[in-house]
């Protein structure tokens, strides 16, 4: 806006002005620059424009103007002249560039943040290491920090050979399961060992790529977007989740053709699947829009998925009709009715299909096997993600700690925890169930495939346990073989588990089964309704909720439990996402995690803990039976209430679903019955995972509290392999971990049970004693305790971390491709790598590094803010709003034909106003004078600039100002790069006259073409310097002194109507309503400012306005004493500038004057020049008086105006 740097040039001419002296002055206000200012300057913390900032700003400023008795006339920009349009185009281009910049800055921001997190994680990990080391080996502290980069290397150095081997195994296992089984397990010798190994490793392994899968597919399908839980999330989280879910929904389509073929042998199924996807994506998109506030589509939100689906079906029907008679297309409405009739039929058909599919699922393992293979096929992708896992792990560390901190609380309040857990469980159950139900069979299959990957760990465990059941105590080898094969089965089984469970339930306890079927029923039609009901009942009755928790153990609950398992892993990811966004929100999630974990503990402890344990311990083989009995007993006791409550529902459901249930049960009856026993055991392992982690957490915290000794040491990961490699130590460790928390004893025992039935039970019992001992003396046990953490936790955290990255990306550039996300992840990894590298290189302390990162972050954030600000534009709506405000204030405004500044200048010249209020220096170039600047800056004096002053003091005529603009750049011209105000004035002084710029161009072209010898310019120091400094930089644009620019400034298109302005009376009530409507201000808030202003205006009306003495005596310019002392005033501006100005003056005034003026420095000279000024002012006064004379009759002329003045 305006001429760059012109204000600094003319600063010496500023006349400080008291606002009070502007009383009853008519001032033209350049409103366009106001809006622009508000748009650019009024920002929230994030750098976003505040809506309606212009209305608020206008209101305040208008009030201020009125308070001082100023009579403003607002001038808005009209069109933009061609020249300006060009420069505006350039600006826009720059803005778009800015937008790119914004994206890039966001990327940078992310990278830096990642750096910092990496640093923190690094720090944390090291601390953990230190702890471990301090417990184990104090001697090797120093080596660790050096090799901190490579965890595994560290481990190798630190630990004994056994551990090394174990670790190696671990590594191999992670990527080559069979090898592990063959080598390490055989060495261990125990039959159960191989299983355990494989299970844990598989779990880990599964998690690794499960992470990838989670990111791509899983999380979001399980989220109940209508659920309270989701709604309770902070809006940004909701937005991010939705957005990610939407992206993900598209991702699913990225399956290879083979994969799709495998998944959907039936074309119809595939198309249906696709439609589902589209539906879901549409649903998500609408939700997203709703979140963003772009709604008009609220109606669809509640039901929309369903509604869309029904409509689709209707359309399909229409098509069928079309097949019958191709011309029936137009009669859609009629067909709707038909469609309703048809609908039920279709639904049945779907159900039948569904059932048949289920049967297929149950009977055909082949399908399932294919599915898992797909999962395997996808592994490569996850591996890419795993690359990011390093950094992710670091991220997770922070998270972990939070969890740790939160954890203890849960253990303390058992009841409370229980309730929470119940709720959480319900939520998750509901979500998962919903998902299962709402989606069609194809979906189910796909989901199963996906879930397989996600639940690999769980599935494996389940498998293992199932295996136990099937072949309870058989040889380890056999199981090893089975481990690989079964996985797929189980994976598929995982999805099947729900069905199976239901079947089982049906078989074992009829009522139970029904209920189960209801709760977890496979039938999709009524599921939603059922779900809603069940949820309601659960919520309504807190007691039943508790029972439900217990029930899961009993047997009917397996379905929910499975969900838990999946939810545990799947849910965490979404939670983690939020972490990246907001820590607060994250904590909530973590809490949930903790609750869940705690809940598991509780369940085990409260429900099954005391009773079941003795039987298990006593007889390994009878476990199943005892469990059964207990389960049944518990069921009867606990479920009684629930049953009663849900009886009605069940009955209803039964009618609907009996068929289905029967079919299912019939198909799987035999096997299901056997399987029934399984559910309790599988859950235990699942439970163990989290509980162990929790225990460790506590231990760690206690450790920290106990010993603050920080020693760089073996990484926690080193110890993982140990566990994996040798199952026995693991158990011991688990026991040790129990020490810290009494509650967790049960899980421990269960764990061994699940993993290796017989031999380990003994271990457990033996271990118990040590546990008690350990309680008394916790310290010794710490070593072991620390080990277990890492495997489970780190993996999960890795997943989380990856997701964090994703979400960050999503947040910043919403529509980035998944590929970009990977890229970002890689970038972040690289950044983290750099962090380490840098810290190694410069030996800086981590704190220092972090500080650096913080600074960089801050800088980038500022950059982002700035970019966003630059990308915003003034809209027509803003202008109309401002004009409405002006109308209510009774203030006249005009829209200039072209430039507002030009119109302002014209108004002054026409004598319609007394001055111009603007911060845009263009006004001078349009011939404006008496320009008031800093009108609303309380920190500065209002400055008045007179065009006459510019000419007299700076010898800058309007033409020269335009020349200056050509050098400096303005709205009409780009200017010369590298030429600042001082240089520009120097150029003007060096090349005087109207053709000065032409001379300059000729000279410079001569210089650049080397046709002008250096000696020729020796006489002028400026030319010499300019040659030296700009030789390689400054290239004059073609047609440099543009006559078009001169013309545009000298002859702007303006409205030269001499019609007087009239001011009305503010419409107070209208203002109140307007402000209420636009910016939501209450009446009180508006009155706060408005009423005093209006009152003041009224008293002025009554008593008259204080007039200024300058109205009566000559010299109306707002001139007062310049408060600065003489020397300071003269010191303003650079010496070069002063010299250049002097030369300018000399050029104009002639040689004699120049001699007098160029002797600088003495007070006398200053004084004399001052005197000159005074004299000049006299001239000005005369002119001013002339204006006044002109004004007087004009004022008299507009008698209508309320506040017009007549003699």
């Amino acid at each position: 806006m305006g001429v760059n740097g012109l204000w600094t040039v003319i600063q010496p001419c500023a006349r400080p002005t008291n606002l009070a002296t502007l009383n009853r002055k008519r001032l033209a206000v350049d409103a366009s620059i106001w809006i622009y200012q508000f748009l650019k300057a009024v920002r929230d913390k994030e750098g976003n424009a505040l809506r309606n900032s212009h209305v608020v700003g206008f209101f305040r400023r208008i009030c201020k103007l009125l308070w001082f008795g100023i009579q403003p006339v607002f001038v808005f920009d009209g069109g933009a002249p061609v020249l300006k349009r060009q420069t505006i185009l350039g600006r826009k281009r720059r803005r778009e560039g800015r937008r790119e910049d914004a994206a890039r800055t966001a990327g940078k921001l992310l990278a830096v943040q990642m750096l910092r997190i990496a640093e923190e994680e690094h720090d944390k990990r090291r601390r953990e290491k230190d702890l471990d080391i301090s417990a184990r080996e104090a001697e090797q502290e120093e080596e660790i920090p050096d090799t901190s980069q490579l965890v595994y290397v560290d481990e190798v150095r630190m630990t004994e050979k056994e551990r090394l081997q174990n670790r190696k195994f671990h590594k191999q296992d992670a990527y080559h399961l069979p090898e592990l089984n063959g080598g390490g397990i055989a060495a261990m010798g125990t039959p159960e060992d191989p299983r355990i190994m494989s299970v844990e490793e598989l779990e880990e392994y599964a998690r690794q790529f499960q992470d990838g899968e989670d990111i791509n597919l899983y999380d979001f399908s399980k989220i109940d977007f209508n659920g309270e839980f989701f709604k309770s999330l902070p809006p940004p989280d909701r937005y991010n989740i939705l957005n990610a879910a939407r992206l993900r929904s598209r991702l699913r389509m990225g399956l290879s053709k083979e994969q799709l073929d495998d998944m959907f042998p039936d074309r119809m199924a595939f198309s249906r699947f696709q439609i589902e996807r589209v539906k879901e994506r549409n649903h998500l998109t609408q939700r997203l829009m709703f979140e963003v506030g772009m709604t008009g589509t609220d109606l669809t939100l509640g039901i929309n998925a369903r509604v869309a689906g029904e409509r689709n079906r209707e359309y399909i029907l229409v098509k069928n009709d079309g097949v019958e008679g191709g011309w029936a297309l137009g009669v859609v409405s009629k067909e709707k009715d038909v469609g309703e009739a048809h609908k039920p039929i279709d639904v049945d058909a779907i159900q039948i299909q569904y059932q048949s599919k289920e049967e297929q699922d149950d009977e055909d393992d082949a399908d399932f096997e294919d599915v898992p293979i797909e999962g395997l096929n996808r592994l490569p992708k996850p591996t890419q993600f795993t690359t990011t896992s390093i950094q992710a792990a670091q991220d997770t560390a922070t998270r972990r700690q939070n969890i740790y901190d939160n954890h203890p609380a849960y253990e303390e309040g058992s009841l409370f925890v229980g309730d929470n857990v119940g709720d959480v469980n319900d939520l998750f159950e509901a979500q998962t169930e919903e998902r299962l139900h709402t989606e069609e069979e194809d979906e189910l299959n796909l989901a199963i495939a996906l879930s397989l990957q996600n639940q690999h760990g769980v599935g494996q465990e389940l498998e293992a346990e199932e295996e136990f059941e099937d072949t309870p105590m058989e040889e380890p080898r056999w199981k090893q073989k089975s481990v690989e094969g079964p996985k797929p089965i189980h994976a598929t089984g995982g999805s099947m588990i729900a069905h199976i469970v239901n079947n089982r339930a049906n078989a074992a306890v009829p009522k139970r089964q029904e209920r189960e079927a209801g709760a977890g029923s496979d039938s999709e039609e009524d599921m939603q309704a059922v779900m809603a009901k069940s949820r309601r009942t659960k919520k309504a009755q807190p007691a039943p909720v508790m029972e439900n928790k217990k029930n899961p153990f009993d047997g009917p609950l397996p379905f929910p439990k499975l969900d838990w398992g999946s939810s545990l892993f799947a849910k965490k990811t979404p939670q983690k996402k939020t972490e990246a966004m907001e820590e607060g929100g994250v904590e909530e999630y973590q809490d949930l995690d903790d609750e869940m974990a705690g809940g598991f503990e509780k369940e085990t402890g409260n429900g099954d803990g005391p009773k079941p344990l003795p039987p298990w311990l006593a007889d390994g083989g009878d476990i199943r039976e005892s469990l059964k009995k207990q389960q049944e007993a518990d069921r009867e006791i606990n479920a009684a209430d629930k049953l009663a409550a849900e009886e009605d529902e069940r009955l209803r459901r039964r009618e609907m679903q009996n068929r289905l249930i029967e079919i299912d049960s019939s198909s799987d009856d035999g096997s299901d019955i056997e399987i029934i026993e399984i559910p309790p055991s599988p859950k235990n392992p699942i439970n163990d995972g989290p509980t162990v982690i929790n225990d460790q957490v506590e231990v760690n915290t206690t450790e920290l509290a106990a010993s603050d000794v920080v020693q760089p040491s073996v990484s926690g990961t080193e110890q993982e392999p140990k566990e994996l490699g040798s199952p026995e130590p693991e158990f011991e460790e688990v026991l040790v971990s129990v020490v810290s928390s009494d509650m967790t004893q049960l899980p421990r025992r269960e764990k061994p049970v699940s993993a290796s039935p017989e031999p380990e039970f003994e271990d457990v019992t033996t271990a118990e004693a040590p546990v008690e001992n350990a309680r008394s003396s916790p310290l010794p046990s710490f070593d072991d305790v620390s080990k277990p953490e890492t495997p489970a936790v780190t993996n999960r955290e890795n997943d989380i971390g990856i997701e964090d990255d994703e979400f960050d990306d999503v947040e910043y550039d919403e529509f980035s491709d998944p590929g970009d996300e990977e890229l970002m992840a890689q970038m972040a990894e690289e950044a983290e790598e750099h962090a380490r590298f840098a810290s190694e290189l410069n030996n800086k302390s981590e704190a220092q590094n972090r500080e650096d990162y913080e600074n960089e972050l801050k800088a980038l954030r500022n950059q982002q803010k700035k970019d966003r600000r630059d990308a915003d534009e003034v809209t027509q709506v803003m202008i109309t709003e401002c004009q409405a405000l002006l109308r209510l204030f009774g203030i006249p405004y005009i829209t200039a034909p072209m430039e507002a500044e030009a119109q302002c200048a014209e108004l002054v010249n026409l004598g319609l106003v007394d001055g111009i209020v603007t911060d845009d220096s263009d006004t001078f170039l349009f011939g404006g004078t008496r320009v008031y600047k800093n009108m609303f800056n309380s920190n500065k004096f209002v400055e008045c600039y007179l065009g006459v002053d510019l000419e007299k003091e700076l010898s800058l005529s309007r033409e020269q100002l335009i020349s200056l603009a050509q050098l400096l750049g303005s709205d009409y011209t780009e200017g010369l790069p590298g030429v600042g105000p001082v240089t520009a004035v120097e150029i003007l002084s060096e090349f005087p006259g109207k053709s000065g710029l032409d001379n300059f161009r000729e000279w410079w072209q001569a210089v650049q073409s080397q046709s002008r010898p250096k000696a020729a310019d020796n006489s002028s120091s400026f030319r010499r310097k300019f040659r030296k400094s700009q030789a390689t930089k400054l290239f004059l644009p073609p047609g440099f002194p543009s006559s078009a620019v001169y013309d545009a400034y000298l002859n702007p298109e303006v409205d030269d109507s001499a019609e007087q302005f009239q001011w009305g009376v503010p419409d107070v009530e209208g203002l109140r309503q307007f402000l209420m409507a636009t910016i939501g201000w209450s009446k009180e808030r508006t009155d706060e400012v408005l009423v005093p202003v209006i009152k003041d205006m009224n008293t002025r009306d009554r008593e008259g306005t204080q007039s200024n003495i300058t109205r009566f005596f000559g010299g109306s310019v707002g001139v007062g004493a310049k408060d600065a002392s003489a020397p300071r005033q003269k010191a303003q501006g650079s010496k070069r500038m002063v010299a250049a100005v002097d030369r300018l003056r000399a050029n104009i005034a002639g040689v004699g004057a120049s001699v007098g003026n160029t002797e600088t420095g003495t007070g006398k000279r200053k004084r004399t020049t001052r005197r000159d000024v005074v004299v000049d002012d006299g001239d000005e006064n005369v002119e001013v008086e002339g204006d006044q004379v002109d004004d007087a009759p004009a004022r008299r002329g507009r008698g209508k105006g309320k506040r017009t003045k007549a003699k």
Partner: protein
Amino acid sequence: MLEARLEQAALLKKVVDAIKDLVQDCNFDCNDTGIALQAMDNSHVALVSMMLKAEAFSPFRCDRNISLGVNLTSLTKVLRAAQNEDILTVKAEDGPDVLNLVFESSANDRISEYDLKLMDIDQEHLGIPDTEYAATIAMPSVEFRRIVADLTAMSESVNIEASKDGVKFSSNGDIGNGSVTLRSHTDLDKPELNVDIELTEPVSLTFSLKYLGNFCKAAALSTQVKICLSNEVPLLVEYTLAGSSYLRFYLAPKIGDDE
């Protein structure tokens, strides 16, 4: 070179005290006729015009026209060092950076000397037209001060209405209204208590009492004050100093919108 000697420092002290609330910085313009001052207040509502003729000084010497930019607050501080009866001498070079003030106590031989830094003040001289005022009121300065003080309690502004019946100062405020009316009055014993009203046509104007209150601080300078009124013209309040020297205040009236 300026050199001016005042027999009584009190004169300058009182002048500065009277105007320092209206004007912060101003130029003392010195020429061979005397020392003149013209300044507006910040709001450009009131104007102070002071003229100390050469006769008021003994001796007075001014070779060249000099403009002394002075911060009145600073000048007040320096003048506070002078006793009312002290002999005050003002000196300045041509093109001065400082103003030299010498106070000589006649009672004892105490001589104090101060240099006051000067400022470069860019000040506009207003051309004050010679006006034939419709109403001229001469009254005791103390009486005027009292009226202003009393009416200030009622309102912010006062309406001065001069007619054949006399001069009526009236205020209309939130708490009520009040007025003071003066008629021509001649006290032969104490001519300083005379109230003299010369009227060519009735006048009614409204002024800010705040500014009038400021003017009244000059009451110490003179026993009589002359108030000149004319419609649509600033009010003139003049205090006559020794000889033909004067201190004048101009105040722009409040103008009703309907007028």
